[in-house]
């Protein structure tokens, strides 16, 4: 048992380190990021950075070279992730495209399409979004209604998507629709990709609890999609969507925001009732719990990496990360503000960067616990797929989709 790299891994890490130190700046602390930029500036910076990665062969490491990747092993990808997290680099725009759309295209698109779409994705020239959730279908994604009808070799799409992150700056989207409402729920779905600039696509931003507007409603009115942009067979959309969601759960890892180190440092310098907060028993008790979670997740990750390093597929242990870190973030964010007493509620980003970090975490955590599978859905996944317990009883089994109840009325 050790934390050492194999000699190949060490060589690779050196190479990564060399390139990163030549091309990026080290973070000053774990939460040192570029978050003060406007969205437009941030996107520009992210595109520049992605292009640089691409030109030097560091884009989408695990993708085959012919599609713009590096053909790296899973463990090399992990090493890259470990090293790059030490640097202040732009991010936040390509996760859906590179993490979800890319792998699906790789599996289901034609060779020609792969050659057309994957390299620009790797290079960060084109941004993709995920058009899955609908007003009536989130956790129960297979309950979606957006209609697709085929005539000749063109599909016509009508309906509405919601919570679509980044739709307003995306070039392309992956889309799940209902092509057969008479079939059973999971049978009548068909999966596409489309140009977000197609006529009939309308994107309306939704203001979020944090005040920002990163997600959107997307309306489809007689939007035309050529049949060759279908991914998977007609009626097989659920299978393709599941592949995408699996990748989403791999892509969505730790919640970002203040973690143990930040709250510990704050407790070490903040006064509480005439003494340092860290001397307070109740503070110590909470810190110890968070440290156990923080350390537990860290070493769970190391166990997974070890499995990868041995060429095995990591176990389902990884599924606990989002549940634990989302809740931990919410508690830490709350407590960080609590340590600032009554003033913790004041929002003044110009004067106290630390305060706003907890405030961002306070809002962000609420979203993390929902996005990409809610806590409840993830616990279902753990109990069913890891522990082998039965699926929930369902009221919609064996019923054609258009006969399933959708409200109390």
């Amino acid at each position: 048992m050790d934390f050492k790299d194999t000699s190949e891994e060490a060589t690779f890490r050196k190479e990564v380190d060399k390139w990163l130190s030549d091309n990026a700046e080290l973070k000053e602390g774990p939460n040192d990021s570029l978050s003060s930029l406007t969205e437009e500036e941030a996107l520009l910076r992210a595109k520049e950075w992605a292009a640089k990665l691409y030109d030097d062969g560091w884009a989408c490491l695990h993708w085959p070279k012919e599609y713009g990747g590096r053909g790296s092993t899973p463990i090399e990808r992990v090493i890259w992730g470990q090293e790059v997290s030490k640097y202040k680099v732009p991010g936040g725009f390509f996760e859906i495209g590179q993490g979800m759309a890319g792998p699906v295209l790789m599996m289901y698109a034609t060779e020609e399409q792969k050659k057309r779409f994957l390299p620009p994705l790797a290079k960060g020239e084109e941004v993709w979004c995920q058009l899955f959730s609908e007003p009536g279908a989130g956790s129960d994604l297979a309950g979606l209604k957006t209609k697709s009808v085929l005539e000749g070799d063109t599909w016509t799409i009508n309906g509405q998507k919601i919570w679509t992150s980044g739709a307003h700056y995306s070039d392309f989207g992956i889309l799940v629709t209902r092509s057969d409402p008479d079939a059973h729920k999971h049978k009548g779905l068909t999966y596409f990709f489309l140009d977000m600039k197609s006529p009939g696509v309308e994107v309306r931003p939704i203001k979020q609890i944090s005040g920002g507007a990163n997600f959107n409603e997307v309306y489809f009115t007689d939007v035309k999609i050529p049949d060759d942009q279908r991914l998977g067979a007609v009626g097989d959309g659920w299978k393709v969507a599941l592949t995408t969601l699996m990748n989403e759960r791999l892509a969505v890892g730790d919640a970002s925001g203040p973690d143990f180190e930040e709250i510990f440092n704050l407790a070490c310098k903040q006064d509480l009732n005439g003494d340092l907060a860290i001397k307070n028993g109740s503070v110590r008790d909470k810190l110890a719990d968070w440290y156990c979670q923080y350390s537990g997740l860290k070493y769970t990750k190391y166990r997974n990496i070890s499995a990868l390093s041995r060429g095995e597929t990591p176990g389902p242990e990884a599924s606990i990360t989002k549940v634990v870190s989302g809740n931990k973030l919410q508690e830490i964010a709350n407590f960080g503000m609590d340590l600032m007493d009554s003033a913790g509620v004041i929002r003044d980003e110009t004067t106290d960067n630390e305060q706003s970090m907890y405030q961002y975490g306070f809002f962000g955590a609420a979203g993390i616990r929902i996005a990409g599978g809610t806590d409840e859905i993830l616990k279902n996944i753990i109990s069913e797929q890891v522990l082998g317990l039965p699926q929930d009883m369902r009221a919609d089994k064996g019923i054609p989709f258009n006969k399933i109840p959708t409200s109390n009325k």
Partner: protein
Amino acid sequence: MNFEFSSDQMLLKDQARKFLEGEESLKKARAILEGELSFDESLWKSVVEMGWTATTIPEEFNGLGLGYLELCVIAEELGRSLAPTPFSSSVYLATESILANASNEQKQKYLPKLASGEIVGTLAHTETNTAPTSNNLQCSFSNGQLKGKKIAVPDGDIANFAVVTAKEGEKVRLCIVDLETKGVEIKTQNSLDPSRSHASINFNNAEAEILDNDKDGWIALETLLERAAVLFAFEQLGGAEACMNMAKEYAMGRFAFGRPIASFQAIKHKLADMFIAVELARSNCYFGAWALSTNAPELSTAAATARVSASEAFNECSKENIQTHGGMGFTWEFDCHLYYRRCRQLAANIGSQTIWKDKLISSLERSNKI
């Protein structure tokens, strides 16, 4: 990165599990709980024959000279099977304090017999229902004699000798006492988990030797407890996982409202929470095992983290296992309460959760790295 036990160590773990199942360790734990005996002698003999008591003792003292990683996997299986033996006292506490502190002569005297199971040792530290500190210790040592009273000594009525914390003037010392010697009076104490025996020990000018070689006895004790905490954590981890599996088995087979209770989401999420607690504890225990086996500077932090995390997981799993069993869980006949008891016993043995949480934060304050 190779943050995993080796295939040899996993093999040892597998053997240990099968061996303890074959020995019907759980049944034996129940028999001890219900009977008059303090431990299962035949199981103890078999454990000794497996060589487990000799694991970390160097070959020059007739031990196997294996590492702590081997001891960790054995501990996990002992915890899973609730083995009613004085293993933790004799190995994690007594053997370890001799290995770390004793003179060569003392090592010659005790280690070969500990390895061969001829003698059993323990640690006698607690005096009242207040956690011991270097200030409040009342036991005293002077002129080769020990005076005072210890309580809640694990396996105190089984052990042949004890390592005892005592004050020599202002100084804390670790002393070693032959429990068959004159001036030692041992009484078995009732405890919450009678499958593991506890005793009070009165020392009335009993002859004793200093073990700590003039080190600071309190620091020697803290180090001993830290190292033992990793091993206790592995026992707790094994117990926690056993409870999770018991709850799962029962939930799959028990029907209510025309369906297995395992299909109710409240039960499913309860089991998911147990899984999360066990996984976090396992990862923290591995970190502890690594630090223990390499004597890493992170040992204080790693040991306290493993201990706190595993205590929490065992607590969560043992109480929710009862809940999952409904009325059956509250019966004497079902095994749920054996784990519920053992959980509390292990949580108490080397100090409370509050104290270990405090140690964890103190250790983080001392080190400037998180």
